[in-house]
């Protein structure tokens, strides 16, 4: 089990109270990331975390920051979300995303959308422009049309790499669980943030599991599973084997441990351990508490993650890896 401990954890609470700091943590998926993709994944999460922080520095909210960070990764073809998404059993793209605002517990989600480059922004529009929380399939696309959000041809979202991988794996008859635990699978992207006003937010976006059945909805778009944000307890974005995350409502489980006084790192570890022991599922989570404490934890071989606070960039890929870079002021 690996953990990334935030600098904030060593800070005195008093110091923190006197000067509220902002933090953005992102992940690019927890799985057996092949070494040939490692550098691109690390570069991608670092860029996304920095993009999120610059939103906060310009006075944006935690909600703005997580949306921007996730959009950055949706636009990056190395990640399984937006551009670069995996293909389902029919060779089609179907995307899921959620965003949640910790202030009033408002959330927006889309599942099974096909022609949208940035599902996280459509999820935000569901939250802000409808009386609903989640739209699925054709209904979600019709909504995108009605608010003038550009739709894109599916081909634009599919990389040559994914098309080849899909062809390769189409031939092997493996269940999703086996597939997931091999080198074959990709995963989701996500972000959590705490802004200078003390608000938290989360966002998660994914192309799902390669070769999934048409219409499969995983954990990413389900509130309490793929993510949850509450100003009173913190924000979480999850990644890993979706069906396992659903079984234990992972995001909500982590926050319930924090509500009972556990640290962000302990709460994440306990919950991921529980998921592994109870339902034999592996995954990862990024968490931020209202105090600014944060953690990036996973039970998979690798998870690409990055965090920025106080002009320091933290990142890692391997278990127990935590590298530091000073950002220019």
């Amino acid at each position, binding site marked *: 089990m690996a953990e990334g401990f935030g600098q904030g954890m060593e800070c005195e609470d008093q110091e923190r109270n006197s000067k509220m700091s902002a933090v953005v943590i992102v992940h690019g998926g927890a799985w057996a990331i092949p070494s040939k993709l490692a550098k691109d994944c690390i570069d991608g999460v670092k860029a996304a975390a920095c993009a999120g922080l610059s939103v906060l520095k310009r006075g944006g909210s935690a909600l703005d920051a997580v949306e921007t960070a996730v959009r950055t990764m949706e636009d990056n073809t190395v990640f399984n979300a937006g551009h670069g998404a995996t293909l389902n059993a029919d060779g089609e793209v179907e995307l899921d995303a959620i965003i949640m605002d910790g202030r009033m517990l408002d959330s927006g989600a889309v599942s099974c959308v096909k022609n949208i480059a940035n599902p996280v922004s459509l999820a935000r529009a569901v939250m802000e422009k409808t009386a609903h929380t989640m739209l699925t399939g*054709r*209904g979600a696309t019709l*909504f995108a049309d009605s608010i003038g959000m550009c739709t894109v041809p599916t081909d634009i979202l599919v990389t040559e790499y994914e098309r080849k991988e899909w062809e390769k794996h189409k031939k092997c008859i493996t*269940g*999703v*669980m086996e597939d997931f635990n091999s080198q074959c699978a990709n995963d989701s992207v996500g972000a959590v943030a705490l802004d200078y006003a003390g608000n938290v937010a989360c966002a998660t976006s994914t192309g799902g599991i390669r070769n999934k059945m048409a*219409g499969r909805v995983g954990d990413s778009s389900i509130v309490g599973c793929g993510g949850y944000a509450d100003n009173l307890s913190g924000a979480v974005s999850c990644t890993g084997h979706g069906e396992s995350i659903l079984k234990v409502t992972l995001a909500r489980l982590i926050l319930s441990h924090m509500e009972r006084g556990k640290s962000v790192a302990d709460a994440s570890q306990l919950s991921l351990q529980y998921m592994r022991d109870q339902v034999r599922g592996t995954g990862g989570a990024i968490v931020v508490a209202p105090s600014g404490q944060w953690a990036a934890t996973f039970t998979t071989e690798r998870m690409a993650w990055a965090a920025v606070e106080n002009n320091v960039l933290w990142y890692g890929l391997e278990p127990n890896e935590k590298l530091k870079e000073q950002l220019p002021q």
Partner: protein
Amino acid sequence: MLPVVVVHGGAGIVPRERSEKSTSGVCSAARAAYAILQGGGSSMDAVVEAVIQLEKNPTFNAGCGSVLNAKGDVEMDALVMDGKTLSSGAVSAVRYIANPIQLARLVMEETSHACLTAEGANQFAQAMGVPEIPQESLITEYSRMRWIKNLAPGANPVESQMGKMGTVGAVAVDSEGNISCATSTGGMLNKMEGRVGDTSCIGSGGYADNNLGAVSTTGAGEAIMKVTLARLILFHMERGQSVEAASDLGLAYMKSRVGGLGGVVTVDPQGHWAARFSSLQMVWAAAQKDTLHYGLYTGEHFTQSIDDQH
């Protein structure tokens, strides 16, 4: 104390002329589920049977009798969960099938996934040999009348939604101590096409865990999702609260934090049960120790022998 089953037929305001049908509907669903449990059937068989009965009953907003979306179509959501393995199955925005709860169970048992949505769910139904039925057979005169009424300028579907929520659900513990939940709905009146509410979302519309208990929820779907109501109530039980206190705490929190009303049925592994709601009414029934319990208004709790068909 075991076995036990508790069912609900939705929280909200049940119009007077429909209250009797609602009550008799949940009572016969509870009886049917209890018969399965007494015959040695599993809690999963029992909750699915209860919900199938309510889906077939046009009085409730699930299966036949579902509310219509803005376009006048029926799109249904359903969820089952098995507390022994924490496996769940769900369908959302599914059309043209009589019993979404059965399809949700098939998703759980026959696929490696936990949720199928929209056309994908219908393709799966076809592959499983679930008969496709004409939409007309799911639509009642009452649901069409309410749809038309809410198309009128100035109509407020959200407001009139409170008139008849009618989501249905059940929780049960069988003689072996296995716990299950099931929830099914036509969703929200005049909803946008593709809208998914709390019902099919694990932790919101329902949750079951042999170690903790089970909850099936009903009410303002968007509010239920904000607080992941089913999971929230079970967190309270994990911390030592009774089924009743945990249910009330969850509902009170939903009301104070996000201003939402609703109702729940809850069981724990010992067979303690509760049917609680913050809305004006919730139609519910429970069967335990050969006794049928039922009620509609706050504080109402009638009992009779399970064999008494009155």
